[in-house]
């Protein structure tokens, strides 16, 4: 089993408009030294990263809205609205957006996460104005048609069935999130609960659109073979005339303090058991907001910790649990460093043949204990740092990725400048700091353990499949 830095991230964090997967590889980050920053009078922020290797441009527009902005009863509305954003404006009929981009050789899609909704086009670089005109148009002039909504909400439900209901590990992840987070908004699935999708109305979407889609709640990120000043002038031309929306107030119900370990079992038709352990931890954004409580180095130490456990083929999980004890077939560690609110440090895996989930959990706990009692070796730490340095260069090979990091940082309320500090901040982390965050955060009172208990796949499926969910029709 090859584990790479890239595998550490959870599989179902993003939901896309079209069935084209986006592979998101966090972190390390690209050097952002030459990012140009502008702001229009209506509040639209514009960030440009020039990269002249190929005559290609990536244009992304990021909105500060996602499932963590939702409340009970309307979960999934940000993602459903993302789908409806392709369904026409005063100027363009449903589907025309995609036809125009396609005829211009472009690729496009959109994705919704817990903390953001973003739309993107990749085009030959001279065609940037086409995407700007269309994105500016749908930022304020979307028409959410009832007859389009009725069809599209069914597509969203099919997406939910495909990605969650029929995938036992994803299903387990969803239940685990709703368990780990008791009151905070990360308990909502990005796609929404099926019952909320059943009850969603076209007016709900119209209101949500009016509330969040405005230049003062958006960031335009352009990277590729462009001139920053020209991008700014284009943005002024297309987005400048849009009126600002009302000032936005985000109210978030905070997560309550957890008292004691949470354990859940998820029974689904499946072949293999699965273990998911999730510890509540701070993230960079919350550390920067509360430096007295969470020193800025701690999120970086958690990044290093995740790499030491699950970062690569030589990391401890691969070396000790996949090889060594041979208790895991696959196992990874993940940390959502760039979330908007306190998030999770996760460990997930499948036991090897002849082992069960309890044995896997015990083996994971031994690794965690070792991190709390002994300092990681200097060579181990150097290895992690070498990988971060090289990844930072490798990621410059992708113009899309560069735009992605800038947009994500900006949208969760970190400045893109924070991304620039990443490599140096990781390099400054010491073995003592790694042990310190292991002791402080990898504790039972922060932990949720979810186990997928496989149910037979070959018994009569009728009840479970047809009647097991509230599909409403």
């Amino acid at each position, binding site marked *: 089993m090859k584990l790479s830095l890239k595998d550490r991230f959870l599989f179902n964090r993003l939901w896309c408009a079209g069935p084209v997967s986006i592979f998101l590889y966090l972190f390390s980050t690209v050097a952002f030294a030459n990012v140009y920053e502008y702001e229009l009078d209506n509040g639209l922020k514009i960030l440009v990263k020039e990269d002249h290797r190929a005559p290609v441009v990536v244009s992304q527009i990021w909105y500060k809205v996602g499932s963590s902005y939702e409340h009970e009863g309307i979960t999934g509305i940000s993602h459903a609205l993302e789908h409806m954003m392709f369904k026409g404006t005063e100027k363009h009929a449903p589907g025309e957006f995609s036809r125009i981009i396609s005829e211009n050789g472009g690729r496009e899609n959109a994705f919704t996460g817990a903390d953001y909704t973003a739309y993107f086009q990749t085009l030959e670089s001279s065609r940037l104005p086409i995407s700007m005109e269309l994105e500016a148009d749908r930022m304020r002039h979307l028409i959410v048609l009832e007859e389009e909504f009725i069809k599209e909400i069914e597509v969203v439900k099919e997406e939910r069935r495909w990605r969650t209901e029929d995938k036992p590990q994803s299903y387990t992840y969803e239940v685990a999130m709703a368990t780990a987070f008791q009151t905070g908004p990360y308990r909502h699935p990005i796609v929404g609960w099926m019952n909320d999708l059943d009850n969603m109305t076209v007016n709900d979407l119209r209101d949500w659109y009016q509330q969040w889609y405005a230049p003062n709640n958006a960031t335009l990120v352009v990277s590729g073979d462009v001139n920053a000043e020209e991008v700014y002038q284009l943005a002024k031309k297309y987005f400048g005339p849009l009126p600002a929306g009302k000032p936005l107030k985000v109210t978030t119900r905070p997560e309550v303090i957890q008292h004691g370990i949470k354990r859940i079992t998820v029974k689904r038709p499946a072949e293999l058991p699965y273990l998911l352990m999730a510890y509540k931890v701070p993230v960079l954004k919350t550390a920067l907001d509360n430096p007295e409580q969470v020193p800025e180095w701690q999120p970086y130490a958690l990044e290093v910790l995740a790499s030491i456990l699950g970062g690569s083929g030589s990391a401890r999980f691969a070396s000790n649990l996949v090889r060594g004890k041979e208790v895991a077939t696959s196992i990874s560690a993940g940390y959502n460093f760039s979330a908007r609110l306190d998030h999770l440090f996760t460990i997930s895996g499948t036991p090897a043949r002849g082992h069960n989930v309890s044995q896997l959990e015990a083996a994971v706990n031994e690794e965690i204990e070792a991190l709390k009692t002994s300092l990681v070796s200097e060579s181990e730490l150097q290895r992690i740092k070498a990988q971060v340095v090289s990844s930072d260069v490798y990621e410059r090979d992708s113009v899309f990725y560069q735009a992605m990091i800038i947009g994500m940082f900006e949208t969760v309320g970190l400045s893109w400048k924070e991304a620039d500090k990443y490599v140096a901040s990781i390099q400054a982390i010491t073995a003592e700091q790694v042990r310190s965050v292991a002791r402080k955060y990898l504790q039972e009172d922060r932990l949720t353990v979810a186990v997928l208990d496989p149910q037979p796949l070959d018994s009569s*499926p009728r009840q479970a499949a047809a009647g097991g969910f509230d599909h409403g029709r």
Partner: protein
Amino acid sequence: MAVRVSRIFLLLTAYLLSPYIQAAPVIQTWQSEKGANVYFVEAKELPIVDIQIIFDAGSSRNGKKAGLAGLTSSLLDEGAGGLTADQISQGFDNLGANYGASAGYDSASISLRSLSDPALLEPALENLARVLVKPDFPEDALARQKNRALIGIRSKQQSPGALARDAFFAEVFKGHPYAVPSSGTEESISAMARNDVISFHKNYYVTKNATIAIVGDLTKAQAMAMVEKLLKGLPAGEKPQSIPAVQVLEKAATIQIDYPSTQTHILLGQTGIKRGDADYFPLYVGNHVLGGGGMVSRLFVEIREKRGLSYSANSYFSPMRENGPFTASLQTRTDQTEEALSLLREHLKIFIDNGPTEAELEASKKNITGGFPLRLASNSKIIAYIGMIGFYGLPEDYLETFNANVNAVTVDQIKDAFKRRLSPDKFVTVMVGPGSDEQGPEKDKAVGNEQKSKAAGGSS
């Protein structure tokens, strides 16, 4: 779960590209001293070197030992030149280098990405050569990888999509090596011995059977020296004989697999085309209109946009060494299976009978040719292309002529090629989902020889 899929295969099912304003990258080619074909693109902008060594050593070379190619590939870095798996992986990781190995139907490939600084690149290449040339195939690693492969096979049992795909390949390629999953079967993996792996490596991991692709911050002279050093210990060997041709299906078949999911997965299709096929461009461009053009293609519009029946609805030709599959697919809530399936059939038939309109063809050409620069916008994308060009022996001007070839396609050529190459009355239909008496699929029994099977549950 790491189900191994060859990079090459993924590339084939991916979106294809062609030259626009941008000139295609300059590909330099040569043959190594011991007969490996090398494809090199110099890219100085970033201090990175990518290298990929591709052998004709995919699962179509397994013979009766299904899963052998994948097992061999997965064992290369599990002990080599006397070093342990830990030492090898630390060797790459200490340098910040990324190693990868994979095997698909046609090929097995080994890849390395390193910074170009010689102090990092040189030792990374030494480690790579060790893995490539001197794998030890330790018994304990073999046992572990066999177990991992068995878990991988079981993991497919909990994925209706994977079950559908395996069933589709088994029927479409019946009697051909492509019919057997590259992951192998529980029986074949369990029976695998160390000697099987050793002789597979000895026969196929040889320089005359190798294609090497390199992109990055190197001169040609440096790349040449690098190749010779890398291949030094590898025998020249022989190029293996061609794999058998894929036989055209003689009759339709419908396969239903009972599965406790909320959706039914539908795959429809038959044998398609090979890499370098004379019909490639008419079929590729035509299929872009039909189901390969993303959110504007006919299947997407008819099935998703107009009716909300599925999240994805598409069709693809996946060219392989021999004729790969043509596949149309969707997933829908089970009680809508009949409606979705008949729509899919209807639109495939309409397209095969009538081809695209002139306007549709024009729109697809604009998308394909206008998007050409996107295909080559990174070193990763360039190496995937030159690896494919090299491995399948496509013309070296494949990229340069791509847009011209796309623009030359006519409506009549598309109609002609689709008619000759696809026969809707001989399609294989696979459905994986809950069985039901009132559902439509039962009515399709008349279409062909019906098979029914159960998803085999826990059988390890």
